[in-house]
């Protein structure tokens, strides 16, 4: 890619853009921000590809690291993250519903409640949950992207899941 192979860049983009976009979306809750962050991450790759050091981790970890910094900057600047709507109805509803449409609707609402609960987590727990549970990255990769110890990731993940369980129970998505 450094040698000027545009197709190599396009291949890398296609392989990684989804994960970077979803990470930014799961962290910010805003599709516009996710798009902006994805663009900035890959622009950084275009302009300074030499900054990636394979000895320090995978390309994915490096891209998540850049994405995380951009998202945190956005969160600091705008200071907004979408709160959990406490009055989520339909999620875990006791109504006797039948049929695939209703099931599908219930599942959608349940997923939306989980998404909102993740967005409502404090940032440092949220990034651990997003990277390890939603992006299915290893603890080492997550630690590399965040820039902390693996033990810190473990404890943040544990605490983040606890908070999520509490919020989802409140919204009756968990039993």
């Amino acid at each position, binding site marked *: 890619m450094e040698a*000027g192979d*545009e197709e190599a*860049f*396009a291949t890398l*983009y*296609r392989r990684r*853009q*989804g994960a*970077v*976009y*979803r990470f930014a*979306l*799961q962290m910010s809750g805003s599709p516009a921000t*996710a*798009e902006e962050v*994805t*663009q900035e991450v*890959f*622009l950084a790759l*275009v*302009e300074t590809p030499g900054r990636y050091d394979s000895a320090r981790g995978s390309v994915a970890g490096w891209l998540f690291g850049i994405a995380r910094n951009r998202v945190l900057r956005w969160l600091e600047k705008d200071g907004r993250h979408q709160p959990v709507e406490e009055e989520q109805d339909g999620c875990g509803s006791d109504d006797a519903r039948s049929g695939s449409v209703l099931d599908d609707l219930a*599942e959608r609402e*349940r*997923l939306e409640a*989980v*998404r909102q609960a*993740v967005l409502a987590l404090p940032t440092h727990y949220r990034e651990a*949950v997003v990277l390890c*549970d*939603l*992006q*299915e990255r290893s603890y080492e990769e997550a630690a590399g992207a965040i820039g902390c110890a693996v033990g810190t990731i473990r404890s943040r993940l544990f605490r983040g*899941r*606890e908070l*999520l*369980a509490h919020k*989802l129970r409140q919204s009756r*998505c*968990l*039993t």
Partner: protein
Amino acid sequence: MRPEERNEEVTVALRALARDMEARCEAPPALETTLREAYRGHRRKLSWRRPLMLAAIAASVVMLVASAAIWLRRPPASAPVAPVAAVPPPRPAVAPKPEAPAAVASVPRARRSTAQARRARRPVAPRRTEIVTEFLPVAGGDLFGRPGRGRLFRVRLPRAALWTYGLPMNVDRRAETVTADVLMGEDGLARAIRFVQ
């Protein structure tokens, strides 16, 4: 409910969300076009910048070589005419100045090195080579009779003084002055003189 079970339930819910988002959420296709454009633009900029940098380096090398050639071709400095000898400029006092080793030793090494660095940074005036005559005994003075310490004073004298000591003088320039070093004995009497050019 036990923490493990609670954890398991949360993990299942998160996995479901991850699968759902993976299926639905991707960056808009237009972004790839934008980034490809940016990539091409960046490569173009690089391809324009690289020859410019090479040209700048080449120009610097050429200038360096040219300066070295000019410096090497400089004509050598004119040789002194006998009986005149070329010597470095005289120090104002012949007597050695008492040193203060204790004071120097008391200065911390870091401060000393800082001072040395400052001195090293100071612009050094180019050292000029002076052409001087031999010491000539002053009338009434005894150059070799009374050995001992003396002091050297730099003075400016009328050019006619050259005549007094039997040195050639341009009559047309007799109104001008000439530099001379006068050697004074410990008794305050002038012992000898030399002329400086």
